[in-house]
């Protein structure tokens, strides 16, 4: 028997807090999601019962902590359908996962004149690491443009690919427009040109398809905190064949095999990429968030979120003077908008006063804002605990704010 989505809100204690004496309406889920009680309990219990350093002690607590940490890795590997759990590397988050690949892949494979392709829909964290690496290695960074609807132009992408293309880095869902990118096509085209593909799955792993083997992604990066897990922990999946060829990113304890003045050899995967004492309770919390997500029927959950998004689009676009940005073929969970004559920061500030949390600004996507020709916008983003009542509260808040802000 699957868990019902109706009432899931009750699992998230923070949703009961009051903000400026209003019930909290939390619509900033693309920035971070709230945590269910089971995740909070898992982290607390770790510290109450088994806290110890892992992978080395031979005392009981250390062995229990090691087992919990590695069981979490296995559970996360199963969730994204990875062949071997050692292809799951723990990082601080999507940003660090991408930086790891940009550094290590760049060192191993990028020579002057080689090309890296990103898209115009990328978050700065899937843009700047590649730019820095290209500057360091003499590579050339190219950008797939998006069209007026917010869809990537695959014809341009096809022309861009060449025998110099080493890697293509794209997100699955744009954090700024909500576009679901056609990854199967992009990955097939990149592979046909002999290029590797890194997928930024920060916005997608908990909303849509997350089977990395079906996608055939070479690298796949995501953060725990955007999928109901704790902050400070993320995942880099890499195909074993790639990970074996990449040099280490950081060095220290845990990642070495033998060390002498003349030569150091590295530990096996995944430890080669996990220098230092890890964020032990992080994977345990993330694994618990995954167990929580698995209590729902995934198709029902997706249908619920799609229905909520459609309702949001319908209600927002009925407001006169409101521009909803992007009209992609497929959109997920993200509603970016502006109201004519109202500055986005002003609208966000007034919504906050009504207890409605949204994000305002550029959402770490300046290339998108430049393409849209706007300084920023208001972004409402949805999670499984949101309901149509939250959308209604947003609409009411916008109407009230508009009265104050429009002269």
């Amino acid at each position: 028997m699957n868990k019902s989505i109706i009432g899931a809100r009750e699992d998230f204690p923070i949703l009961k807090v009051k903000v400026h004496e209003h019930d909290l309406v939390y619509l900033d889920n693309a920035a971070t999601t709230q945590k269910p009680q089971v995740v909070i309990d898992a982290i607390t219990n770790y510290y109450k019962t088994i806290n110890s350093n892992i992978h080395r002690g031979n005392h009981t607590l250390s062995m229990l902590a090691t087992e919990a940490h590695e069981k979490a890795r296995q559970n996360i590997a199963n969730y994204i359908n990875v062949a071997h759990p050692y292809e799951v590397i723990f990082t601080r988050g999507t940003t660090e996962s991408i930086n790891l690949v940009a550094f290590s892949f760049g060192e191993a494979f990028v020579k002057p004149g080689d090309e890296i392709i990103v898209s115009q829909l990328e978050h700065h964290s899937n843009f700047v690491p590649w730019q820095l690496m290209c500057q360091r290695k003499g590579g050339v960074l190219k950008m797939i443009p998006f069209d007026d609807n917010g869809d990537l132009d695959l014809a341009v992408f096809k022309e861009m690919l060449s025998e110099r293309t080493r890697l293509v880095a794209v997100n699955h869902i744009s954090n700024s427009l909500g576009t679901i990118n056609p990854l199967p096509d992009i990955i097939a085209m990149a592979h046909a040109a002999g290029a590797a593909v890194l997928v930024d799955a920060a916005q997608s792993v908990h909303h849509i398809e997350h089977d990395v083997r079906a996608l055939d992604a070479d690298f796949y990066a995501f953060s725990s905190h955007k999928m109901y897990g704790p902050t400070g922990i993320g995942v880099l999946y890499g195909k074993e064949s790639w990970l074996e060829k990449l040099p280490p990113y950081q060095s220290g304890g845990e990642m070495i095999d033998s060390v002498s003045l003349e030569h150091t050899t590295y530990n096996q995967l995944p430890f080669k990429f996990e220098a230092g004492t890890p964020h032990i309770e992080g994977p345990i919390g993330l694994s618990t968030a995954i167990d929580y997500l698995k209590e729902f029927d995934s198709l029902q959950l997706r249908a619920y979120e799609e229905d909520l998004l459609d309702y949001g689009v319908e209600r927002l676009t009925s407001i006169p003077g409101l521009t909803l940005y992007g009209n992609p073929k497929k959109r997920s969970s993200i509603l970016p908008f502006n109201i004519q004559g109202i500055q986005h920061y002003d609208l966000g500030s007034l919504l906050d006063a009504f207890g409605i949390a949204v994000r305002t600004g550029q959402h770490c996507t300046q290339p998108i804002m430049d393409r849209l020709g706007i300084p920023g916008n208001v972004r409402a983003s949805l999670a499984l605990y949101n309901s149509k009542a939250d959308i209604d509260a947003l609409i009411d808040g916008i109407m009230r704010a508009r009265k104050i802000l429009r002269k």
Partner: protein
Amino acid sequence: MKTIKELQQEIINDFSFLDSWDEKYTYLIELGDSMPPMDPANKTEANLVKGCQSSVWFSLRCEDGRVYLEADSDSLIVRGITAILTTIVSGQCAQDLLTLDVQFLDEIGLWKHLSSQRNNGVMAMLGHLKSFVSEHCTLPDY
């Protein structure tokens, strides 16, 4: 000339007569509206306050040890805040502004912790003001 403390207390008093949150915001926006428009020639890169989500311009000058501020923003709320700062800052002695704090903004009932958050636009404005004063105003040596 009223002191900075007196001016801050007046602003707190003005806001205290407004009961609802809507009225306070409306009043703040009116304060911004009542400010004379800034000369577009003064909206230069150097006068743009760095670190704000909206665009904020501060045009500052020193005359006989006193500081004068003209300000503008594309945000109505921020323009209201700059109007308050203009009232408090303009005509004051340069050395008094070096120790200016904005704790009084927390007492007008719109924000709870504006002055304690390091990373926000008001702090950026305060920093911009203080670096102008220390670089461009003649301060007494004592």
